[in-house]
């Protein structure tokens, strides 16, 4: 039969996807695929958040919390605690700016890849909450030095809120009435700058609740490189304070931090009402995306209780927590069974690859596994593998296990190459590799997405671990490692995949044909055990 094709066609890569791939390629060249910072933007955001918190606590120790003493306390910190005081202040600023930068890139990247609908909806919407709170927390930080920048930013913010009927001019009076803002009002500003980051942390926690495992720490080398860059920048370009706030005066030029304070500049062009309209349009558009668009998703995984022994490997490997283990509902002597939440299921098939019942060596005429994908059933994939491997001729004979989201493997097919496309490379159980070799292939090339860039977050890492026998189900030690190769090739990397195949083919030619004494797959029986 024909190879089992996924039911929903993927859209052709658009300009945005291609642009992301090109940027990725540049960073891949510098950092390698695994350390590419573009694939760790969320985790880098966490890192910069923590640096910002730590430096903020450091500054707060010496900070005078009154309107009249705040600026002088910071100036004294710069003067007397040099370089630590000035360093902490600059590090606080630059880490906050870096947080905005990676968050914006993270948003743009996920948007370009249409990662916002269906099982990603919750993560997308909570990400928008993080975005809003991040700006609220960050802008509030510029008020605390209570210099002319602080005064202008605070006034611009209150003018913006005063455009709302509920305030209607009342807020700005707190800043401009009298000769100085009151300490009580200033204490409120400080409270906001402590409370809002805490709220942001809560939103960040919610943001990663529907992914498993959440990647909140960038790889060590990337973390150290990024932190060192911020530290060097903080030393090279310390911050300077503007003159003390003077309510009777506006400076002619303000050194604006465009990462956070661009809404003030935008308000000068759009007006307060226009800025509210622009913000509302931006947020409503992004929030509506999950509801207004459909993204390709294979139907949710289904559990076959007759073939599920409750081993929980699918539960452990599911990258979106769509599989839970619940008490057994049938009479089988296992305490638990897998249960799929269809709303959370990405349709990646990683659970199928994790299920020990997915082994093609089972002797039943029909292969039914414990948790299977309706659009790419494991039994049909076994039949496809058998027929295609049997049809191979010439040498060396290669079977390619491709990923639907990676480089298109099917175009590589020729007389000596067969390609089986899975919903994700991690849907292919390692036993399929051994089965292909015993069915007549000289080698198996497993092709996943670019390293660390799995469409389903963890697929490429899971494949690597399974093939290295570091994760169950593992590739058996009896399989000759030289006949199995795992490569990374993204959607636009067909050329790279072709090169990998040629290189693998050359290596297999040097090895010679597969040992003739390698036992073929066992023969089928009419019945199979559950």
């Amino acid at each position, binding site marked *: 039969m024909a190879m089992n094709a996924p039911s929903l066609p993927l859209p052709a890569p658009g300009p945005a996807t291609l642009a992301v791939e090109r940027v990725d390629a540049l960073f891949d060249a510098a*950092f390698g695929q695994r350390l590419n910072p573009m694939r760790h933007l969320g985790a880098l955001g966490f890192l910069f958040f923590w640096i910002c918190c730590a430096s903020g606590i450091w500054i707060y120790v010496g900070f005078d919390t009154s309107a009249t003493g705040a600026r002088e306390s910071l100036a004294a910190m710069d003067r007397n605690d040099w370089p630590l005081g000035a360093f902490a202040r600059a590090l606080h600023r630059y880490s906050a700016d870096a947080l905005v*930068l990676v968050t914006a890139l993270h948003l743009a990247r996920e948007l370009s890849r249409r990662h916002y609908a269906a099982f990603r909806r919750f993560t997308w919407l909570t990400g928008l909450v993080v975005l809003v709170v991040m700006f609220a927390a960050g802008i509030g930080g510029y008020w605390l030095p209570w210099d002319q920048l602080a005064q202008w930013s605070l006034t611009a913010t209150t003018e913006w809120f005063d455009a709302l009927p509920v305030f209607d001019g009342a807020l700005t009076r707190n800043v401009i009435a009298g000769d100085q803002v009151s300490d009580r009002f200033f204490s409120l500003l400080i409270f906001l700058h402590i409370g809002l980051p805490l709220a942001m942390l809560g939103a960040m926690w919610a943001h990663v609740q529907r992914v498993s495992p959440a990647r909140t720490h960038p790889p060590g080398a990337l973390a150290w490189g990024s932190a060192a860059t911020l530290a060097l920048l903080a030393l090279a370009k310390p911050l300077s304070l503007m003159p003390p706030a003077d309510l009777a005066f506006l400076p002619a030029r303000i050194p604006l931090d465009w990462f956070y304070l661009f809404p003030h500049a935008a308000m000068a062009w759009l007006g307060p009402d226009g800025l509210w309209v622009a913000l509302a349009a931006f947020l409503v558009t992004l929030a509506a995306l999950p509801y207004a668009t459909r993204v390709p998703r294979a139907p949710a995984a289904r559990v076959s209780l007759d073939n599920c022994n409750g081993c929980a490997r699918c539960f452990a490997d599911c990258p979106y927590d769509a599989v839970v283990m619940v008490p057994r509902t049938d009479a089988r002597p296992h305490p638990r069974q897998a249960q799929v939440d269809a709303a959370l299921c990405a349709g990646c098939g990683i659970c199928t690859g994790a299920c020990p019942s997915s082994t093609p060596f089972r002797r039943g005429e029909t292969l039914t596994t414990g948790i299977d994908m309706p659009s790419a059933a494991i039994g049909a994939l076994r039949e496809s593998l058998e027929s295609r491997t049997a049809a191979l001729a010439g040498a060396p004979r290669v079977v390619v296990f491709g990923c639907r989201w990676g480089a298109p493997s099917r175009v590589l097919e020729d007389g000596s190459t067969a390609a089986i496309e899975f919903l994700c490379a991690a849907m292919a159980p390692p036993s399929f590799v051994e089965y292909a070799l015993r069915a007549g292939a000289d080698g198996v090339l497993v092709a996943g997405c670019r390293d660390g860039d799995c469409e389903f977050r963890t697929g490429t890492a899971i494949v690597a671990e399974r093939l290295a026998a570091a994760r169950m189900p593992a590739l058996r030690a009896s399989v000759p490692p030289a006949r199995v190769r795992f490569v990374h090739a993204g959607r636009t990397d067909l050329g790279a995949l072709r090169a990998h195949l040629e290189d693998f083919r050359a290596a297999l030619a040097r090895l010679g044909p597969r040992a003739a004494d390698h036992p073929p797959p066992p023969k089928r029986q009419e019945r199979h055990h559950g």
Partner: protein
Amino acid sequence: MNRAVAWGLQVVLYGAFAATLGWFSTSPAFEPLPPGHALIRVSLNHAGQRKAACRTRSPEELAKLAPNMRAAEDCPRERAPVLVKVELDGKSVADIVAIPSGLSRDGASVAYRRIPVPAGTHRIRVKLADDAAGTFDRVREEEMRLDPGRVLVVDFEPGKGGIVLR
């Protein structure tokens, strides 16, 4: 890619990251006012007079009320909007109608306007009306020098003589 080239590219990309942060954290500078301009801020928080005067209730009216509700006067709650006009060198630059707050329109009228004006010496005239007839019985006129960047706040504080230019 050659390892040394990759390391070099990393340094360049980290450098670009730092340069982006360093530059946009303070640059380009923003001009909050057009060059050579000052700013007049009209900020008001004042309760206008009641729209209608209190009326003394007749004995018959009082008798119809519950004993605990027999107030001698019936005072409508709604207040008049506060009207403010600001003129600069004889030309109107702000004409504000501040509606009283509250569902019954019985609270203070709050208003805020931001008016950039060319710097220089100006004759400023501010008029305020807070009664139902809209009588501008509070007026302040002054010649003032407004340097570039100067912020002049126009407020109304009855305890300080009425219209305040600060």
